[in-house]
């Protein structure tokens, strides 16, 4: 969690001037384009992924740095990717929104809300067809429950009894709109249950609660009980993207949320000195990653033409 927080803070700093949106203007920045930060949501990534094995898969969202780190990916290579360097996970072709590290089963962040759900379901079906023991954790936000693939994907996983943990990481905001004002009914867990996917609700700021609920649900999935659903309620500390000041939010709502900072809550469980040391180590690791990323080579222009397709490669016009 401390590593995620330190990473997000550094990425936020490095992205200033990186995108012209929300009134911000474009200038020189190490991290280009929209950067969606998971600051404040670290407990969900950490608590769920603590129950996954290296060979398990995850799919993630546009707000995916935390999931990626929690699944065991290299912080340094992720920073290189945000800097657009050849040494990044995606060789500079994906950036923040498409972060992936297949070597640890991280099958990709996604720029399209809910798009990871069908992909997770398909990966789980591949596991089942091959008779493997792996499972898939599928992260998505509260906004995703209003898209069709949510219904389609959960139904599909249920009828085929697939090994998927659906994790609705509910930060209460769909871009700049309060999700509650746009969502009818009793919420994500009720919808999941109506489709036939059982699950639990949890305080997504309490990493120990997320961990223990995930443990139970993951065990059910590994025991062959089919897909399970975790509705983790947390809060997005930052705006939709790093340059969004999120002035549309009520100040009291934000203050209350900051009082439930998952890092502070988790820190209370260990001696203060140990907590301080963990955060300091994380900040130093991120500092080194920033230095490595800034010195890393750019991808050569020819890279733009690689990994498009094999059939017809070379026919660009």
């Amino acid at each position, binding site marked *: 969690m401390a590593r995620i927080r330190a990473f997000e803070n550094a990425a936020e700093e490095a992205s200033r001037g990186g995108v012209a949106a929300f009134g911000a203007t474009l200038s020189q920045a190490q991290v280009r384009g929209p950067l969606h930060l998971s600051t404040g949501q670290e407990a969900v990534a950490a608590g769920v992924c603590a129950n996954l094995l290296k060979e398990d*898969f995850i799919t993630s969202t546009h707000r995916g740095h935390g999931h990626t780190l929690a699944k065991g990916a290299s912080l340094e290579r992720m920073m290189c990717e945000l800097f657009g360097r050849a040494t990044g*996970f995606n060789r500079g072709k*994906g950036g923040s929104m498409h972060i992936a590290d297949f070597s640890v089963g991280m099958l990709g962040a996604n720029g399209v809300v809910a798009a990871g*759900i069908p992909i997770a*379901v398909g990966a789980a*079906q*591949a596991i089942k067809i091959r008779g493997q023991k792996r499972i898939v954790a599928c992260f998505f936000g509260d906004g995703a429950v209003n898209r069709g693939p949510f219904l*389609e994907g959960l139904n599909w996983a249920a009828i085929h009894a697939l090994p998927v943990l659906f994790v609705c990481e509910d930060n209460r905001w769909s871009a700049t709109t309060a999700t509650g004002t746009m969502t009818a009914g009793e919420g994500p867990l009720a919808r999941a249950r109506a489709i036939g996917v059982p699950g639990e609700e949890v305080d997504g700021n309490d990493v120990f609660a997320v961990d223990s609920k995930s443990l139970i649900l993951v065990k059910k999935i590994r025991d062959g009980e089919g897909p399970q659903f975790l509705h983790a309620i947390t809060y997005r500390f930052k705006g939709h993207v790093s340059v969004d000041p999120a002035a549309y939010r009520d100040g009291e709502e934000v203050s209350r949320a900051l009082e439930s900072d998952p890092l502070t809550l988790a820190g209370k469980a260990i001696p203060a000195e140990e907590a301080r040391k963990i955060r300091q180590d994380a900040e130093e690791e991120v500092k080194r990653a920033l230095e490595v990323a800034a010195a890393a080579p750019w991808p050569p222009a020819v890279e733009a033409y690689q990994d498009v397709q094999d059939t017809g490669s070379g026919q660009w016009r």
Partner: protein
Amino acid sequence: MALMTYAEAARLAVREAMARDREVVVLGEDVGRGGIFQQYKGLQQEFGAARVIDTPISEATIMGAAVGMALAGLKPVVEMRVVDFALCAMDEIVNQAAKARYMFGGQGRVGLVARMPVGLWSGSAAQHSQSLEAWFAHVPGLVVAVPSSAQDNYGLLASAIASGDPVIYMEHNELWGLQGDVAAETVPLGKARVVRTGSDVTLVTWSRTVHAALEAAQSSKHSVEVIDLRTLWPWDRETVLGSVGKTKRLLVVHEAVQAAGFGAEIAATIAEAIGVRVKRLGGPRIPVGYAKPLEDEARITAERIASALDNFN
């Protein structure tokens, strides 16, 4: 060599691929009962419901799940029923299948074949009759195949499954019953076939209109060379350039709406390259109507092609 229908030829290609490679799976609506054109007949009985997967009417997830399967190493053959329904899965095709390999820096790849039949399907009206091949040819990452014969449907489908790329595979709604001799030979993607040689006009076409073009060529006052493109992306410009270099005249014919159709791409490429006379014949920019006189307006017949050929002087 055996005589079989266009549907049976495709079924044979899938059956052989599944028998050879356990990673090949089929998914889509009604595939367990053979599919609506019987192009999957008997496959679930032979290979089991785990590999020939019946799905809900959930096009986005049929395609999205196939992307997930492919990223996990399987080789899915995806049934979309008709191209019109594939429009419910456009994010999964365009943003996911076509992009995943590239945007993940080559960490994964999406080898799959998405079958989505195109074209007029007599009496089926506006939402079951479209020819949208140009949409997909426009998207980097995708391969687009458009077989016109039983042999090509066998050979192109076998190549598509083996390719490792996301292939948009467009059979024609009115060719399922077409019979032809099929040899156990694959057909390479990206390679056109000269189906008739001639010296005055090069006629480039694909899918069902190949047959109408041949009929028109036979009665034409010109000596017409007919090329079946077979794959729209990558398209075989060498064969077309070679032919037009000889005939100095090009007519491109397709059933898809002419405006912004793939014929424009071919005509422009050839005109830029060798500056010869080019003409196009495609459908009018109208939805396909239900009543026969309305549907007929969208149909590219041998007579219409003959008339376009006659207008070359």
